[in-house]
């Protein structure tokens, strides 16, 4: 009864300490159940010899020690790292150039913007299969190469060409997404800067390097961070193109593919796969920090 007679402002103030938590509860709950709990569970599992159907026991750092002697882990680490090195520069630079192309308001430009964005919304499985057909020994690309006298190229049978092909698909599929981010950043670049540079006699390349790039630098860092994390965690493209075994002799296996292969199925080694996941997490965080640190150093 006291509440009903209390002034309105006082009622609100009385509920204040609890209210923010109430509003945050749904988000906290989802984060806790789907992010925090799996994360902690993975950390705990990485210290056990747990299998899919067997709870397992605490083994300390044995899984991590085993990783050091596992050839397949090093192959996975090599391929995931190469993926970052191959894909990230392309995804930082090419979408920016594409954004500059489609930024101009000329008739029909919407068509090109949509066309470049289409691969982003296409299913990766469908896209992967189409590229497998195109790059097949008897696919369209090899037929074209054969007709011009180059001969057939083993895009899907050579371990390095396979990895390069998967990288190409990742870049092709990601161009549109990062192009949109760059378009938003380019819209904020003052036109006067370009005009002033032009008056000073700067050509297109000079204006790009001295006006555009510094203006969108923070966006480039963002794209670099996002694409490096995504590239290190690559799974679908390589899995679809190299097959479940990870290419010839498993030489194209990436770390996330190794997690999937090791930890799933009725005889899956959940503990060992969790240890690989922890390594993926640590490297991913390190990559983010590296990119952000590079950005900060550039600023100072």
């Amino acid at each position, binding site marked *: 009864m006291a509440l009903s007679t209390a002034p309105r402002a006082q009622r609100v103030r*009385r509920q204040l*300490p*609890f209210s923010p*938590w109430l509003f945050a*509860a749904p988000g*906290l*709950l989802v984060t*806790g*159940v789907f992010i*925090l*709990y799996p994360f902690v569970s993975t950390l705990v599992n990485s210290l056990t*010899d747990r*299998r*899919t*159907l*067997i709870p397992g026991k605490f083994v300390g750092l044995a899984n991590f020690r085993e990783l050091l002697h596992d050839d397949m882990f090093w192959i996975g680490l090599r391929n995931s790292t190469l993926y970052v090195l191959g894909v990230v520069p392309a995804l930082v630079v090419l979408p920016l150039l594409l954004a500059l192309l489609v930024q101009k308001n000329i008739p029909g430009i919407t068509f090109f913007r949509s066309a470049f964005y289409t691969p982003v919304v296409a299913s990766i499985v469908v896209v992967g299969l189409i590229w*497998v057909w195109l790059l*097949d*020994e*008897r696919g369209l690309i090899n037929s074209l190469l054969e007709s011009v006298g180059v001969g057939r190229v*083993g895009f*899907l*049978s050579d371990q390095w060409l*396979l990895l390069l092909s998967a990288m190409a698909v990742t870049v092709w599929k990601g161009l549109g997404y990062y192009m949109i981010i760059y378009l938003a950043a380019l819209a904020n670049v003052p036109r006067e800067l370009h005009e002033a540079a032009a008056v000073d006699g700067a050509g297109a390349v000079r204006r790009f390097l001295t006006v555009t790039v510094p203006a969108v630098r923070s966006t480039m860092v963002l794209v670099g961070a996002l694409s490096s994390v995504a590239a290190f965690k690559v799974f679908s493209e390589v899995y679809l193109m*190299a*097959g*479940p*075994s*990870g*290419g*010839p*002799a*498993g030489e194209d296996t990436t770390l996330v593919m190794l997690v999937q*292969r*090791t930890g*799933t*199925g*009725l*005889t*899956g*080694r959940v503990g060992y796969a969790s240890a690989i996941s922890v390594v993926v997490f640590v490297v991913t965080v390190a990559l983010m920090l590296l990119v952000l640190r590079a950005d900060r150093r550039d600023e100072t």
Partner: protein
Amino acid sequence: MPISRRTLAAAAALCLALPLSACGSGGDGGGSTDASGKVEGDITFQTWNLRANFKDYFEGVIADFEKKYPDTHVKWVDQPAEGYADKISADAAGGTLPDVVNVSPDLVAPLAKAGLALDLDKAAAKYKKEYLAGAWASHRIPGMTGTYAFPWYLNTGPLFYNKSLFKKAGLDPETPPKTYDDLFADALELAEKSDGKVATLANVPTIEDFGRYGVELMNKQGTAFTFNDAKGVQMLAKYKELYDAKALDPQALTATPESSGRKFLTEAVAMNPGSALDLGNFKKQAPNLYKNIGITDQITSTGHVNMYVMGVMVNSKTRHTPAAVAFAHFVTDAEHQMSFAKKVAIFPSTAGSLDDPYFTKEDGTDETRVRIAAAKSLKNAVNYTPVLFSEQMKTALRNEVAKALQGKESPKAALDNAVKQCNTLLQQQG
């Protein structure tokens, strides 16, 4: 009223713990091995990619069962072929494994080891004599006593070949290779005549190939793999010869059953294993190939083809053991296996069923000829897939075989490595 941080933390922890508490094993109840009680209760039956083609058949079987046992209700769920093992493992780990599950021997092994498969030698021994002895034994696990699934349908899987490609290479299309020696000779000739453009095979050898070549896959006790013997090395060396001559497709190292099927469809490879369902596919998608299709038995140098066995397992944690056992037996008894076999090209595992005129009497059609030949070869077929051969072991073998074919390792070293890795995985399985 101020709320302390401790109260808040406790509330947050409770919020987190509450939904998670629903994710427990849930399999505490039930678990009786006694199937002699009254057949009653609600049970769930899970099949492996069968709803699309056999919905009416299974609904009929379930209706008949519920009519026979009015106090039962069977809920039927069907899972897609892709990721079936993952679905079972998620259910098994989460305590939501259905009461009656369609399995293969290699899926039963880990479930039996985890105590999730009912031992039918104890719970359903009276039905044992209804099945072929070999089929009943196919769900026994090395190192364990007992049998962990009813045998269901059997298949050998025919080998398709392209008669036109054989003819072009100067080979007799009516006498396809039967043994591995024939296969290697024909494949090399086909590659040579087509200037390396037509391969005979699209896949690297699997554990079943080693078995059919006559390699001892495991020791007698089932405690270690032994396929790195002289015969195994000899076979892999021969495959290396095929790979170098392009008689084995260059993309074989990354091939999947789907990709090799596609290669056969586009006439890039001359031979491919498959099932009777593929014939309809060839007719629709590659009429030219269909006109030239040849069907033969699997290649074998032992005189025994490989037999694929499907089983029906009873969840040991079921709350309705009598109903689950009765239903698993009902689906797999001679009458129902026979009626299922007449709907699709599979073969019953029940004793005497293969002597039925349906599997012995010619009627002049190709379909019947294939069926009779397959039924005949099934009588002495062997299930070459070791029950304990897991997905991880398949990958280990495949990768080592690939290294040998690429010349990165000798066949001997590759097989030694594969055996070592498989034995380590076997030990880790416990």
